[in-house]
């Protein structure tokens, strides 16, 4: 075992030992929750397993003052409930606290404006252990329950490592909205791609204009049956634009323009070149 591995193991064990002997957090004693539990035991138990249980307001943080509700023998009209509320109205309660960080632009966002609210995706009283961000399903499953075509695209042979659990939708998109197109995390499609593919960023001495403008001119980020997420197989992909003189306009099925990497056999620097004769992307 390497020295680094020993250090890692010792540190991990020390940390584990230290934490494992720490007393359990004192039992929750938030005002209101105990009273709510008298009638809503199961719901409160679920709530207590979530980070929200640490809020000083507890149940009343979302449902409002329960005094009249209790006095009225559980009168539902005397308490703020969410059942049947339009999504945007239900979300307003959440946004009282979650107005910063990634949620700053939720109001008026693509989801909000189409009546996809906070509780469409998040479960405030989840069964069992509280999932991360209280998502009602694993993220990939959750997003693709509406975006079914994306689920299918991600099953194609060329795909992002999402079904393997190494990426998720929020690696590229902010479902809570922002000022960018398609709710992308970065300001443009290309800037999003450069976050992981910085070698394509350049800039280059010779640029391939459609590449610089939008990676999606040639690639389907959500999946393809062709190598490298290409939208169309080589050489047809290139020939759909390049129909100029001589070989770009010729039919290629049995030649060096079609086998292997197609056009890129000779033009491998298709994303840009730093070579003085690279204006044709040869080097």
């Amino acid at each position, binding site marked *: 075992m390497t020295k680094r591995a020993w250090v890692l193991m010792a540190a991990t064990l020390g940390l584990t030992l230290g934490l494992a002997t720490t007393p359990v957090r004192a039992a929750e004693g938030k005002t209101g929750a105990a009273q709510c539990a008298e009638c809503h035991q199961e719901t409160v138990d679920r709530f207590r397993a979530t980070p929200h249980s640490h809020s000083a307001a507890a149940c009343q943080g979302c449902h409002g003052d329960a005094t009249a509700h209790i006095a009225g023998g559980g009168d539902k009209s005397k308490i703020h409930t969410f059942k049947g509320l339009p999504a945007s109205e239900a979300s307003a309660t959440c946004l009282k606290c979650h107005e910063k960080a990634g949620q700053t632009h939720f109001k008026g966002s693509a989801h909000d404006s189409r009546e996809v609210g906070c509780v469409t995706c998040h479960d405030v009283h989840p069964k069992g252990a509280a999932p991360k961000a209280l998502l009602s399903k694993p993220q990939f499953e959750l997003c693709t329950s509406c975006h079914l075509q994306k689920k299918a695209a991600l099953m194609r042979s060329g795909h992002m490592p999402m079904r393997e659990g190494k990426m998720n939708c929020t690696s590229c998109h902010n479902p809570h909205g922002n000022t960018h197109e398609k709710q992308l995390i970065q*300001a443009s499609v290309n800037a999003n791609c450069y976050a992981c593919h910085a070698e394509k960023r350049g800039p280059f001495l010779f640029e391939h*204009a459609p590449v610089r403008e939008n990676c999606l001119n040639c690639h389907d980020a959500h999946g393809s049956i062709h190598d490298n997420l290409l939208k169309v197989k080589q050489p047809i992909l290139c020939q759909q634009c390049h*129909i100029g*003189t001589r070989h770009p306009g*010729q039919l290629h099925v049995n030649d060096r323009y079609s086998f292997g990497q197609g056009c890129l*056999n000779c033009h491998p620097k298709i994303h840009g070149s730093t*070579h003085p004769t690279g204006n044709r992307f040869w080097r």
Partner: protein
Amino acid sequence: MMTSKQLFGIAFALVALPVCAQAVQGQIEVGVSRGYDLGNKDALGKYENVPTGPGLYSMDLRWDLPSNYWMEMGATDLGTNTQSAWLRGGKRGDFKWRMGWDELPYVVGQNVDTHYVETNPGVFRLPDALRSSMQSTYWTSTTAVTVAANTPGNVALGTALAGLFPNKVDLGTQRRTATGGLEITAIDHVTLNLDYRYDRREGNQITPIYDGTTIAQFAAPIDYKTHNFNMNAQYANGRWFAEVGMDLSRFTDGVERLYVDNPMRLTNVSATNPTTGAYYQQQAAVMGMPTAPDNSAFGWNVAGGVNLPLHHRVVASYTSSSMEMETGLMAGSTIPYYADQTGGYNTINARMDTSLTTLKVMGDPMGWLGYSVSYRRYELKDKTFEYYFPLRGRGDSTAPTADPHGHEDESWKKDSVKAEVHFKPMRGMRLGAFVSQDNADYKNRFAEEVKDTIAGVTFDGTFKSFSVRAAYSELSRTPSKFEEGETPDVAGVGSFNDQARRTAKIYNAVLTYMPTDDLAVSFTAAGVKNTFPDAPLHGLQDSRTDTYGMDFTYSLTDRFSLNGAYVYEYIDSRMISQYLGTTASTALAADKWANKSRDQVDTFKAGFRWQVIPGKLDLTSDFDYSQGRGDSVYTVGSLAVGATHSWQSAGYNSDPNATTKPYGFNMANAGPFLNQEVVNRIFIWKTQATYRFTKQLSGSLLLWLQRYDKKDWAQDAMSTYTYLVDPGANKSIFMGRINPAYDAKVIRASVSYRF
């Protein structure tokens, strides 16, 4: 990297200690796994690795500490090249910190044949005997050719090369990512966020190099390092909100240049092409190629807004970014006359600045009526110096030509205006309509300006037992002006379908039906139909994508539920083209050809959840199957096959049963013919039984079947040599990359302890 046994030791220790404590919550899963028929090695697909032997599959532990402190620790698949681990902590309401480690393989091929040997990082050599064999196959002296290169079925070169020093190499990369971050929420109304990510990719990628006549593929090494740092702050108080941020990114490539033996370097310095009589010059012993240049980027952004009375809201933002690259030139190539081509520059640098400005006003003042109006400007400014080069070389083997060229200004900008209005005629129903216009302005494209106009409607409804979400829009693209003489339909110019006149019809709809609490069924349809009316003679004419799908979940009983889905995707594009000489006057109608490329994908999903013995034994099963198939149908002109202007040469081996590769396709004059298909199938079936011995302890048995196969005419035909690809390049050396296929079976037994 530690071995799986070493990591298992750590995992065991991690399990043993918390078991004795009461403070920890969460679970830990350890077990043993075995895979069968995984192919050459233990890779399962592009991104998955099957651990063999003992391992820690998942761990997710949490400690709630005094004074509102907390901590989490987790890991997955320790000991494999897909492992990840994280540590998080903080104090509620004050701050959170996080650290993470993640690994991701990208397997392109295993045990791939290559004749090249990487003697030093980035330096690739060929055995002398191989090069000599290639030369003697084609010629023995500067004038005499011993084998006609264009003879149908010529296998001389293949035979000569087949047994010569093939080496094996794995193709792919391993990505390792370390992350760290801090979020501070202690200040009222303010959140501060710091993020750092270090990303390293090592491995290789299949890379061709072209010397003007010869193509040589080799496994170019990759040694990428990227540092990303991000800092931002958000403020929200009452009706006001604002944020400010900055990004810094630095990319470096540990391999600056590639030097590759010229496979056709002649002992005798020249020879003639047997077909064309053209004179070969093969002086360059080694071909040089620059790799991805080191680069950096810096950006900052501000945004802010205000919520006005009557639910009006105004949001504005500005993002600015700058990308820079600098690299040396002189060491970048071995092309003869290179010094004459460089224009006297020893180094070059390039810079681009981008900015995004947005303004959005929105609101729903009456509850049943809402609106939004937005403006966006995205701008890219090319700040690169106007380099000028007097000569252009096609590769190492030919003299440069007088072709003055230089860097061109790639600047462009796009202004977008969008207006949307919606109303809610009844509870649960929303109707919307929108119109937008994008005006793009280019410095260096054939169209100086391109205008997109989009208009559409949306419908959202949630009713008692079903809900509907639907949208339909139409796009009209108009290039306002092409440079003189350069319209898409003029011979010699590409169609540039991202700029050409285009109309598109875009739709999507989801209907979800929930007749009871136990059943939910969704139907989906989505698609785009594009037409390019300016391309009657050349280029892309139309393209289309359609997706239709349904999925359902059904709970038969409290203990048994089913789910399933099917999606059909159809993607096609039609284009037309023809051989054109160096001037439009050489175009012949007989050289016309058309192509229709079509991909179809069927995706199935099914599964069940069964509590066989409630509280004791669960059985789950998930099945996924995707079959993609793509084909290209060509229609050729009467003179196209074997004609001068077609590369369907008589010299090509078109016998699909040929034992030597590649083989080609049989084509018929003036009739449609089908290019061979691309087919790939993915089959994944995981079935897991979980038995709970106690409330804390459970055991699982997982049976995981995964199958993948692919048929790709462009790849399957490749071997480490390719003879007679066409008359112009009859001596290419490719890598013998075989599309990976496997029929894997994985069995995993594990024990999970929940604290």
